[in-house]
Each structure stands twice: as C-alpha cells, then as structure tokens.
C-alpha cells in the first residue's frame, strides 16, 4: 500500500466539496477516479497533487504525510503529475523539454549547454511514449495528442532514479489524461499508461470523464458522488453497480466492446 488517503475533507468557504474520502493505491496498480461533475473528484485530485491543502484528513505516500509539501519535494519523493490541459515548454524542442528535466536535479548553469545535457536518457523517455520521430520539433508545433504524450514523458522524467537515492516507489497522478483526444489516441495513450504501471510498478491514479479510458484500462475504479466515495471495485463490478448506473453511468451503459481485460 503506497498511496493512502485518509478521511480527506475539503471545504471552500461554506461549500463542502469533499466530505471524508478514504482509499489507497498500491504499487503497479492503475486506479481511476470517476464521478459526475461536482462530485469532488477534481478537488480530491488537487488535494493529493498538492494544489489545495486539505481542510482535514491525511494523505500518506509511502507511510509519510505529504500534505503541504512543495512540488519539488513531492517529486523528490517520487510523486509526479500531469495537468488536465497539457503543459509543455513551448519554446523548446521536444527533446530539449526532456533534457532540461533530466538535467535539472544536477543544477542549472548558464555555461552548461542544453543540447549536450544527457540526450540519451531524454531519447529513451521519448521512445517510451512514442515521440522519438518528432524529437527535434518545437513543442509548440506538436498536435495536441502528442503534447499529452510529451507531458507524460515529462512527468516520467521526474521519476528517473537520482544518484543520491535508491529506487523509491513511484506515483503518477494524471488529471484527465485522455481529455481532448480522439478515440484511437485515447486508447493508445491509456494502453501506454497501463503498461507503465504494470512493467515499472508505478502506482497510477487518474481522473477521467471518458468511460472508454476507464473500463478496460483501470484495475480498480473509485466513484465519487456528493463528496463521498459512493462505490469502489473492479471495472466489471462498478459497471454492474445499481447506484452508479442510476446516478452516473446510465441504465443502458455497457463496457466498451472488447474492453474486458483478463
């Protein structure tokens, strides 16, 4: 058990967005956080990702509380994230985006030439997300689907083992990874995320609105409603859950064709 959310509560003024949510995500597990608009899933995600301090409750990563830690410190402990709208460094090439992040822990200097900074590691990451063919394009010229992939690689760059630490457990927090993508792009990206979790033992927690990016991908699904965890379980169990069908998926919902995985 590596990520643990304990009785998370978040109020915005008089609005109780999250009213006491507890769950956990284990290493190598791919967990989807879904729910209707206003159910509190974005707030829950933002608290875990460190954007909002929780009103009460704890977030433990690897047994240690991480609420209130600076982004750099969270990353050092192996917690990486992406954003709902992909954010990349537009003025740099795709390869330079990653070279900068790979090099960054070693200190930034005005006399270290960026193009000489460890292109091998950066290229390896690009290969992982299937962007090696566009390595020398400016990030601003990429189509949106490719920028989503680049941002995923940028998050992974932050999880590369550093010289001063042994391989720590790793967590990827993905804020709507498939948003804005066409159906084929969505399937390919989610397959990539799933492979990362399985082959590298990364714990993945993601929020999502597209059900074909949830069923057939996630090992476990958490359903938030009205600020509370309404249901959790395997995708199959969630698809059959009467409350979830009535309140969110719709009574006519069936898992996307061919999505059921072993």
């Amino acid at each position, binding site marked *: 058990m590596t990520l643990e959310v304990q009785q998370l509560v978040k109020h915005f003024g008089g609005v109780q967005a999250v009213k006491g949510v507890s769950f956990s995500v284990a290493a190598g597990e791919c967990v989807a956080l879904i729910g209707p608009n206003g159910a509190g899933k974005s707030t829950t995600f933002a608290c875990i990702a460190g954007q909002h301090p929780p009103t009460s409750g704890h977030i433990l990563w690897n047994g240690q509380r991480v609420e209130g830690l600076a982004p750099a410190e969270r990353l050092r402990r192996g917690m990486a994230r992406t954003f709902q709208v992909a*954010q990349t460094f537009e003025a740099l090439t795709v390869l330079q985006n990653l070279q900068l992040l790979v090099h960054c822990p070693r200190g930034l200097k005005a006399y270290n030439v960026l193009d000489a900074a460890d292109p091998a590691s950066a290229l390896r990451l690009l290969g992982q997300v299937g962007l090696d063919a566009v390595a020398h394009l400016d990030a601003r010229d990429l189509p949106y689907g490719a920028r989503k992939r680049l941002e995923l690689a940028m998050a992974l760059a932050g999880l590369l083992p550093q010289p001063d630490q042994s391989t720590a457990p790793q967590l990827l927090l993905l804020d709507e990874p498939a948003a804005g993508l066409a159906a084929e792009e969505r399937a390919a990206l989610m397959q990539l995320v799933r492979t990362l979790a399985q082959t590298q033992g990364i714990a993945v927690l993601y929020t999502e609105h597209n059900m074909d990016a949830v069923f057939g991908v996630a090992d476990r699904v958490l359903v938030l409603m009205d600020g509370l965890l309404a249901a959790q379980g395997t995708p199959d169990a969630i698809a059959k859950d009467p409350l979830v069908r009535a309140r969110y998926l719709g009574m006519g919902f069936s898992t996307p064709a061919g999505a059921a995985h072993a």
Partner: protein
Amino acid sequence: MASLASDAMILLVLGVSLQAMMALGGLVSFGHAAFFALGTYGAALSQTVWGWSLPGALAAGCVASLGVAVVLGGVMVRSAGVYLAMLSLALAQVVWATASQWVAVTGGDNGLIGLQLVTEETRPVFFALLVLVSIASIAALRRLSRSTLGAALQAVRDAPERAAASGLRVRRVKVRVLVESATLAGLAGGLFAAHKGAVFPSVASVATSVDALLVILLGGLHQVWGAVAGAAILVWAAGELGRGFDYWRGALGLLVMGIMVLAPSGLMGLRLPRRRRA
C-alpha cells in the same frame, strides 16, 4: 563620432541586460532605469566620496544594483506581467525621487559633476573597454539562451505550473535572472557615469526605461543581435535626427508603432525566417 558610438554601446549593454530577463524569463520591466541609475550613482558617489578610480567605481555601481535586486527581487517576481511592469516602474520612480531630493548625497537636480573616471589620456582604453563589454554581454546572452539555465527560464515563462511540478525552483530561477540583469544594467550605468563625467536624476527617468525597452523592441525581443540594431538606431535618431528636427521622439514613436505592426519580431526578425532565437 566616437562619443556617439560610446553612447550606443552603453545603451546596447543596458538593452541586453533587459533582454535577458524579458525575452528568456518573460519578466517585463517598465523601470529598468532603476538599476541603470543605481549603477551611475554608485559609480559616481564612489569617486566623489571615496575617490575611487574606474575599476572600483564600476564595481561599486554593479554592487549598488545587485544589492537592491537581491533585497527586492524575491518580492518583485511574486508579480508577473503588467503587475511586475508597474512594480518595476514604481521602483524606478523611487530611485528617481531619491536622486532628485536627497540633495546632501546626490546633489539633487544639480547632479554629481566633474567626475574624473575617464581622462583624455585614458579615453581610448575606455573605448576599448566598452567594445569588450558590449561583445561580452551579447556573447553571454547567446550562451545563456542555449544553456540549461536559459531553458529553465523559458520553461518557467511558458508553463510555470509544469515547471514547478517537474521540480524547477520557479522563484529562484526568476530572482536569479533578475539579479544578473540588474547587475549588468548597473555596469551599464557605471560606464555611463564614466563616459559622461556627470550624473543627473534623469538617468532614473521614465525616458531612460523607455529607451531600454526601445532598444530591444526595435531590434527584436527574441533576436540575439536585436539590441545592436536597436541601440544603433536609437542613438542615431537622437543624434542625427534630433539635430534638425525638434519632434524626433514623436517620429521615433511612429517608427516603433510601424515596426510593431509590420514586423512584430523586430528589425532583425526580418532576416531569414526561423533563425536561432534568443
């Protein structure tokens, strides 16, 4: 002629200092004259009070700018965009008010005159120094734009949340470029005091800040050689155009408007497209 070239080179160094933080770091300043003026008064006072010669005076000018940038930098970079621009403008006004009203130290509107930082014998050496500093500052900007630090600046400018989530120390990177930029502006100020032999509160005026902006906007914010073109045009316009034409600043304003509309990436941006950017 040599005097005009000296004016242009000093303006060039001031322009490059602003270009480093504005083009790479996205830190817009409408008050870069603050750091320039601190450099001029630092250099001038080091001679009038302690009798320092050129090297010490230039160092004093740099230290004055650097000191203020270190103290205020952390607060300034909390703001961005137009708020940072207004904050920098306010700082320049404070420096200007101090220079014109703290008469006992700065001489007020009479300024500090009769500086002997450069004599007739040493003027050729000083000119060589100006050439050297100009070349070095352009080379440094070019180097910075291709370095890991320069990439971090652009990263922080374009996607601050992503940069922070990826472990880049956003504020530290911004403060660092602000301090380095201020120090170079202070050096330009010291060189100005040495070149003119006198300093007046006008070095901290809005006009000086605008000159620094014009230098890089005329030549092109993202062009490595932009400041060279901008400084040359501005000094030529002031010297030649200004001689027979009272409204040269107005004419220059129209020219700048024309350039912003017709060539938004500056005059140097009109050369071959897709050249290496600063």
